């Protein structure tokens, strides 16, 4: 008898579209999807990639202070984003540009944060897409609290399609080590809350590889907390869509939380400030390039759905138009007024803050011609 027996083999992941673009069936996750829906997913993926590339370019041109690229993770994000219903709520990290896209948050709004003209600034309740959260894992607890509210509002298990609501909490392999994420698991389990924990395991937390965070597959952790966990091919938009849809359905119907580990890869640097050549090998990148989420869908569309070059040309044109639009919009985002930081600290500005603001305004005005 030994406490340390054999480590079980790495489990299979749910895959519905192979890297070669071959459609495969999974007994638990049948997906019925039309060619038009597939084309729509292809369009999402391509536009998100183009937008993301523009973010990187704008940083290089000095228009953004920083950009956190989602290159390689488009399928994981678009699949999850498109699995949501309007009333569902997403709690992103700071890299969920693909989910934001699916929730109709304008890319330019996201760029504002990375340009340094806002700290977020959008209304989470307008598109049911929370503000980006930079402190790792903190948002998973916000998702739990929101899900508590959903449950108390009687928006779980009624069977009404437009009423029942699920919450999708995003985090990464690095954040899985955070206390907040583990607390969120506990709260969700204890309260049987309608929340799906969606971990994009992109293999790297800046320079730290997955082995620094875990010695079990991340989705195995769910079992210890008392809810189901599953690993999916995070570069397969169909698997991401089908499994997230199922998990959200189960959450909405009152079956409680679950965890999805979308197995993917961060193809770009952590952010534009990072230099991955210092800590990882290009071989790894080449391996993952062969699993590209967009190429496989394109291959399928060409071979199996007879989609012609016209469609791909249109999407490319739309991508370029999007890039032009956001580039110009980003460059014309105005700097905030130097007095604006005072304004929304409190719902009603305190007297001492009003005094501080007035003093600073007076100081600024003391410079000849400095302010109009």
């Amino acid at each position, binding site marked *: 008898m030994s406490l340390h027996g054999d480590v079980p083999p790495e489990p299979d992941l749910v895959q519905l579209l192979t890297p070669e673009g071959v459609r495969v069936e999974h007994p638990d996750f049948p997906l019925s999807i039309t060619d038009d829906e597939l084309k729509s997913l292809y369009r999402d993926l391509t536009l998100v990639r183009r937008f993301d590339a523009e973010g990187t370019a704008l940083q290089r041109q000095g228009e953004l202070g920083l950009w956190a690229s989602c290159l390689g993770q488009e399928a994981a994000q678009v699949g999850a984003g498109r699995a949501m219903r309007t009333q569902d709520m997403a*709690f992103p990290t700071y890299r969920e540009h693909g989910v934001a896209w699916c929730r109709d948050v304008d890319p330019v709004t996201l760029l504002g944060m990375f340009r340094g003209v*806002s*700290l*977020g*600034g*959008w*209304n*989470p*309740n*307008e598109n049911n897409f*929370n*503000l980006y*959260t930079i*402190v790792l894992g*903190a948002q*998973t*607890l*916000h*998702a*739990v*609290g*929101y*899900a*508590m*509210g*959903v449950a*108390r*509002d009687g928006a779980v298990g009624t069977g009404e399609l437009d009423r029942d609501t699920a919450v999708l909490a995003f985090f990464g392999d690095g954040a899985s080590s955070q*206390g*907040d994420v583990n*607390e*969120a698991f*506990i*709260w969700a389990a*204890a309260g049987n809350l309608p929340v799906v924990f969606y971990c994009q395991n992109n293999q790297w937390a800046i320079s730290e590889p997955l082995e620094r965070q875990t010695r079990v597959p991340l989705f195995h952790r769910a079992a210890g907390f008392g809810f189901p966990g599953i690993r999916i091919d995070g570069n397969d938009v169909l698997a991401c869509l089908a499994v997230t849809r199922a998990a959200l359905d189960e959450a909405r119907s009152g079956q409680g939380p679950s965890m999805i580990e979308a197995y993917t890869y961060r193809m770009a640097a952590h952010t534009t400030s990072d230099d991955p050549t210092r800590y990882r090998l290009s071989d790894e990148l080449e391996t993952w390039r062969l699993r590209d989420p967009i190429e496989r869908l394109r291959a399928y569309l060409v071979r199996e759905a007879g989609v012609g070059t016209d469609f791909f040309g249109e999407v490319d044109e739309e991508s370029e138009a999007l890039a032009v639009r956001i580039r110009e919009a980003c460059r014309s985002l105005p700097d905030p007024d130097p007095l604006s930081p005072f*304004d*929304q*600290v*409190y*719902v*009603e500005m*305190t*007297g*001492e*803050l009003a005094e501080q603001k007035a003093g600073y305004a007076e100081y600024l005005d003391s410079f000849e011609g400095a302010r109009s």
Partner: protein
Amino acid sequence: MSNLSMAGALNAALRNRMEADPKVLVMGLDVGKLGGVFRITDGLQKDFGEDRVIDAPLGESGILGAAVGLAIRGYRPVCEIQFDGFVYPAFDQIVSQVAKFHNRSLGQVRMPITVRIPYGGGIGAVEHHSESPEAYFAHTAGLKVVTCSNPSDAYWMLRQSIDCDDPVIFFEPKRRYWAKGEVDPDAAPLPLHTARVVRAGTDVTVVAYGPMVATALDAANAAAEDGHELEVIDLRSLSPIDLAPVVESVTKTGRLVVVHEASVNLGMGAEIAARVQEKAFYSLEAPVLRVGGFDTPYPASRIEEEWLPDVDRILDAVDRTLTY
């Protein structure tokens, strides 16, 4: 008008707000059947149900993180942190999330969260149960910080904090929980962020708050026997600070002693001293003195009475300021 302990007054305030607004939730450790370790939430779960008086899993970050999500969803959570020294696991959620959310959303989402924290020493407790962490929170933009010193203020200030659309850190002086006083639920209360002169005097201004107000009043009684009239001000609001009554008093007395249990280094006393010398420089007859905890960890409880400011240490400071 009823004669209530501070604990009873706080309980009545919670009950009042829960009756008034179905979005008010109480959440914390042991707040349900037990009624909280200090019984502040006694009977609430029985009357309002487990959905509104929530026994939380044991994690303070979880309590505050969940409160953020509930607030986004339109709720008005009242969180209980069991003891002062247990708030630190929730520090990130409070200072990085709760305090900033309204600002980050450009005012589109409010965080009407009240965080109740029993604080301060003097009850013979073990480590981490006697601390005064108010300055950490008063330092953070986006939070409001208040503390009560008597049952009437406890009742009204908690009601006002729950009604406040900004997050309020509500410090309760646990050693005063059982002192009784009159509470008039029909009286018009002072606005939340105002200080109050609790004893008029002419010679030295003493600013105190929370558990130290009673001590300062005792000191004023003792000083009167020596012929010195202390003006005692209960600060009540630590962020924002209602400085005007303090300045007005110092203009009259020329002397100021600030008293709190928290360590003096970078404490509330430092801020008040700085602001008073800005606003009342020419009125000051003596340096502003601070009486507070020493810059050490809170001591083992058998010597806490030595460590905590008491009547004698306040009188010593009064004497020193009068020698100028």
